[in-house]
């Protein structure tokens, strides 16, 4: 016997909605056609609340909460699109564009990039912060894939998919703060990884051109993620 699902009612942007207990604000919003921008979140992976694009206002809580990890509660009044939130989201994108070297015009995912799409949607047209122009490598040692750190936004989707779904845990993050970087094994060329199964999952969950298939020309690389919901169901559970 399963306990009956408890239903919660709340409002999002003034619209009354109902939700199952345990659902997140993001899930409920999307079910109701309210789109909250996300970057580090990907359905099927453990949410981490790191990019902060999905921050929303909740009446009665004096700080902003990330919609992707915050569970709904009875009577919540959520605002997802205030002027303040939009401004913060724009600034977060500005920060991401200034952090590394995102030259979209020569990128394999140009036109299919989540970062680009977010910028278009939120109307970010120029970056007020000085570009940091870090000197970062491109690792093409893998026979089928490439990682270009210049385009990485450190969302750790690759780390999570490889650990949680593929079970290989090739990727992790090294260093800290602004010097953080994605690494394979002991910070070695990806092609020499002892545990990579070349399954390609990391490549397809990557929101940007940081991870791509070899041999793709500019704007040619499209990401396919049909495997994720299916695999997570098979693995019994994470929504």
């Amino acid at each position: 016997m399963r306990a009956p699902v408890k239903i919660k009612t709340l409002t999002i942007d003034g619209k009354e909605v109902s939700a199952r207990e345990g659902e997140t604000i993001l899930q409920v919003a999307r079910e109701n056609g309210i789109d909250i921008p996300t970057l580090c979140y990907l359905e099927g992976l453990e949410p981490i609340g790191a990019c902060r694009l999905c921050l929303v206002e909740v009446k009665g809580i004096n700080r902003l909460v990330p919609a992707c990890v915050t569970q709904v509660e009875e009577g919540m009044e959520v605002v997802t699109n205030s002027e303040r939130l939009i401004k913060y989201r724009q600034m977060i994108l500005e920060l991401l564009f200034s952090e590394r070297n995102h030259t979209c015009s020569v990128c394999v995912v140009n036109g299919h990039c989540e970062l680009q799409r977010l910028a278009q949607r939120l109307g970010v047209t120029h970056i007020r912060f000085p570009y940091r122009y870090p000197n970062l490598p491109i690792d093409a040692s893998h026979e089928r894939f490439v990682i270009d750190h210049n385009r990485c936004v450190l969302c750790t989707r690759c780390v999570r998919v490889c650990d949680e779904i593929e079970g290989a845990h090739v990727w992790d993050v090294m260093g800290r703060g602004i010097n953080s970087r994605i690494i394979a094994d002991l910070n070695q060329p990806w092609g020499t990884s002892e545990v990579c199964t070349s399954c390609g999952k990391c490549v397809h969950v990557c929101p940007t051109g940081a991870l791509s298939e070899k041999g793709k020309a500019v704007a040619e690389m499209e990401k396919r993620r049909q495997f994720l919901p299916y695999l997570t169901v098979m693995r019994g559970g994470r929504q």
Partner: protein
Amino acid sequence: MPAAAATLERPRVTPPSDDKRWRIVEATMRRHGYQPHALIETLHTVQETFGYIDEDAMRFVAQALRVPLSQVYGVVTFYHFFTLKPQGEHICVVCLGTACYIKGAPQILEAIERTYGIKPGETTKDGKLSLLAARCLGACGLAPVAVFDGQVVGKLTPEDALKQIRRWEEDDGR
């Protein structure tokens, strides 16, 4: 601690070399039942006994504790206490905590940087001197403070600091 992950039969992981010091490292891991959460404790032991943590050590610890390689590397590079390379023969740690900063630590650091051409975290080419910066050694009452090979010295001036390092050079020169 979590209920001990059922003690699976596992092949003994052999240390990278027959250096006796690996036994100390193994003792730490044994004390913690080879649980993955002993990673930081074990790395402390490696850092203490060998003075740094190289690839062989990381590989060995990763296998023995069954922690992914990239996770070990991620942990080693996250914490300032762990170093991937051996330190110089002599180590000078300058405190850059608030009290020391206000009382002139930047000038001490600058004097050493200028004289020896190294920045915090670096070692001179001859491997003699490593310069490190610390965040408060908990002796703020005596600021500015620096540690010379384990010896803490307070109320330091740039001249004193250089003198101390020169004394090392002289002692070693003999």
